[in-house]
C-alpha cells in the first residue's frame, strides 16, 4: 500500500485468464462494485483505476429524485453494518446529464442499477436509459428493504418479481440482471420466476433486514427501525443463496455479500457465481475491488487454474 497516490491496478500473473461473460455482458475479470457503495465510481477513482474493473455498477437510479432517509443512516454491527440510506439519488435525468458524461472518459462496462416504487417506475428508467449509449447493462433492484413500497419489497413474491422482469425485458436487448433480496423463504423460487420472465442473469444478495437498538436511549440506532445488514457477517448467508440459486437456474449469477478478499470471491465462484460484487469492503479498504481481482488471479496462479471460468460452480457437496 504505502503513501502511494497512484490509482491501484490489479496484479495478474501471466497466463491467467480472467474474462467472464455475465449474461451477455463481457467483463475482463469477474469483479464489479456493489451498487450503492461506490457512487458512480467518481470518488473511488482517486484510489483505483476504474477501467481495471470487470464492470462498474452505478448506484440505484429512479425516475425522479429520492431524498432517502434521515440520519443516522448507518451503524456498525459485529463484522457488519446496517444502513438505511433509502436509495437517495438525483433521478434519471441528472444521472444521464451529469454522471454518464463523466463516465465517457472511461471504457469500463457500465451496469446501471434501477430502482422503483412501482412497475412503471422501472420501465420509465429503462426507457430513458435506452437512449444512452454509455449504458451496457441493467441491474434491476427489486429487493431494497429500505424503501416502503407500500409493503414488502417486490422481490419477495415470484409473480411480482417476474412481472417487473418481463416489463423491463420488453424494453431492452441489453443484458438484464435482476437483483434478488435474501429476505425470502425460498430464493430459488424467485430466481426461477425471473429466469422464466427473461432475465439474462440474477445478482444476489441484497442486504439482509436487521435492526440495532441503543439500550440506553431505548431507540433504534438508525432513523428507521429496520435497515439492511451487509459485510462479512452475511457472507455465509450469501454463499448459501448463491449455491441454492445456481442449482435452480441456468442463467449466470452475480454473487455478493461480505466479499473482502480474493479468496472470498473464489468461494462465490465455486458456489456458482460467474462474477462478484464488492460492497461494504470498499469502506474498509478503498482499493478492495482491485485487491479482490488480484486475489482471484493469485489464487488461480497458485492452484494452476488457467481460466477463472473453471472455478464457476466447482464446489463439491
Amino acid at each position, binding site marked *: *500500500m504505502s503513501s502511494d497516490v497512484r490509482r491501484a491496478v490489479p496484479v495478474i500473473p501471466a497466463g491467467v485468464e480472467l474474462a467472464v461473460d455475465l449474461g451477455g455482458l463481457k467483463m475482463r475479470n469477474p469483479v464489479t462494485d456493489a451498487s450503492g457503495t461506490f457512487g458512480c465510481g467518481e470518488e473511488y477513482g482517486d484510489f483505483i483505476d476504474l477501467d481495471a474493473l470487470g464492470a462498474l455498477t452505478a448506484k440505484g437510479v429512479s425516475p425522479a429524485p429520492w431524498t*432517502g432517509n434521515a440520519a443516522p443512516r448507518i451503524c456498525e454491527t459485529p463484522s457488519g453494518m446496517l444502513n438505511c440510506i433509502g436509495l437517495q439519488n438525483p433521478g434519471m435525468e441528472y444521472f444521464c446529464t*451529469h454522471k454518464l458524461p463523466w463516465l465517457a472518459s472511461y471504457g469500463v462496462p457500465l451496469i446501471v442499477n434501477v430502482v422503483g416504487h412501482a412497475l412503471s417506475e422501472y420501465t420509465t428508467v429503462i426507457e430513458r436509459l435506452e437512449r444512452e449509449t454509455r449504458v451496457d447493462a441493467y441491474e434491476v433492484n427489486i429487493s431494497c428493504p429500505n424503501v416502503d413500497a407500500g409493503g414488502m419489497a417486490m422481490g419477495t413474491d415470484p409473480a411480482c418479481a417476474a412481472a417487473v422482469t418481463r416489463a423491463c425485458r420488453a424494453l431492452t436487448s441489453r443484458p438484464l440482471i435482476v437483483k434478488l433480496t435474501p429476505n425470502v423463504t425460498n430464493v430459488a423460487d424467485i430466481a426461477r420466476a425471473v429466469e422464466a420472465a427473461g432475465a439474462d442473469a440474477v445478482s444476489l444478495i441484497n442486504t439482509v433486514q436487521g435492526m440495532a437498538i441503543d439500550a440506553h436511549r431505548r431507540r433504534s440506532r438508525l432513523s428507521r427501525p429496520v435497515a439492511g445488514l451487509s459485510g462479512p457477517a452475511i457472507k455465509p448467508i450469501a454463499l448459501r443463496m448463491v449455491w441454492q440459486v445456481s442449482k435452480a437456474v441456468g442463467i449466470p449469477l452475480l454473487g455478493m455479500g461480505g466479499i473482502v478478499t480474493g479468496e472470498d470471491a473464489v468461494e462465490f465462484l465455486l458456489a456458482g457465481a460467474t462474477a462478484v460484487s464488492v460492497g461494504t469492503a470498499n469502506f474498509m479498504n478503498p482499493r478492495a475491488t482491485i485487491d479482490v481481482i488480484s486475489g482471484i488471479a493469485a489464487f488461480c496462479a497458485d492452484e494452476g487454474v488457467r481460466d477463472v471460468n473453471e472455478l464457476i460452480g466447482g464446489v463439491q457437496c
Partner: protein
Amino acid sequence: MDENPSDDPYVCEPLHGSHPRGDGTDRVPPALEDANVLSNEPVADDVWLMRLSAPRTAATARPGQFAHVRLSQERDSVLRVPLSFFAATPSEGTISLLYQVLGASTRLMSQMRRGEACDLIGPIGRGWLDRRAPAATIFEPRRAILVAGGLGVAPLATLAENLAATGCRVDVVVGARTTSRIAARERLETVCPDLSIATDDGSEGYHGLITHLVSERLATHVPEDPYDYCAICGPAPMEVAAAHLVQGTGIYAEVSTERLMACGVGACLSCVVPTTRGLVRSCVEGPVFSVEEVVWDEL
C-alpha cells in the same frame, strides 16, 4: 429536471467542482496512506493524543479536514474512524489526532503502541474557511470567536493558531465536563491567554453551559471591532444552541458537523447533513458548513 447541481436538492457536487479524470483539479484528492504510530498517550482523563508518521497527509492537511483511520486489518472491523487533524507538521511528515475513548474503536486505538501500523485516508473534506476559498476574494477574518465543546477542540486548535498568525484576534470559548478534561489548553492559551471556560461540574470557570459564555461574549463584544468570524465544534446539542446564538448577527459562522461515516470519500451517502441545498455529504462537502446553510431543524 434542473441540471444545475447546486440547485439539485438531492445531490451536490463539491463546490470545488467535480474532478475530471486524471488531470489537475483545484482540490488535493484524498489518498490511502500507511501510517506508523510514533506516540500515543493520555493527555486528559480519557482523552488521548496519537502522533503518526504519514508524510503525504501531513503535507496536504488543512485545519478542519480529517483522516479516516483503519485501526485493524481484521475483517470484523468494518468501519473506519473519522478523526480531525489536531496538528499536521509537513516538515516532519507527522499528524496528530486528539481523541476521546468512547467505544470499541477508540478503545482499540488507545491500545496501540509506538511502531504499530494502521492506514488512513486523508486529507478529507472541507476545513474551516474553505467554503469561501473559490470566491474571487479571499476572506480573512480580523476578529474571531472559536467555540469548542469537549473534543471539539481538536479541529479548532490549528485554526486558532493560523488565524492568529494572520493577525486576527482570536477569542476561544471552551466547554468541558470537568477541568481535567480540558485538552490542548497550552496551545489555545498561546493564541488566547484569556480562555473562557465553562465546566459542567463547576470545577473551573463558569459552572454551566458553554453557550452561556458565548452569548455573553456576543453581547458584550465591541461594536467598533466586531467579531467577523465564528467557528463552532462540539456535541450536536451545543452546536445547535451556538448556531442559534450567532445566526442573524452578521458574523460569518461555520460549524464542523459530526456524522457517522462509512466510506468517508463521498460514495455512500451515509453522512448527509440537511442544508438549504438538500441533504449533502458531510465527508466531502463538510465536515465544515456555514451555519446559514445547515437546516438546523432537520439536523
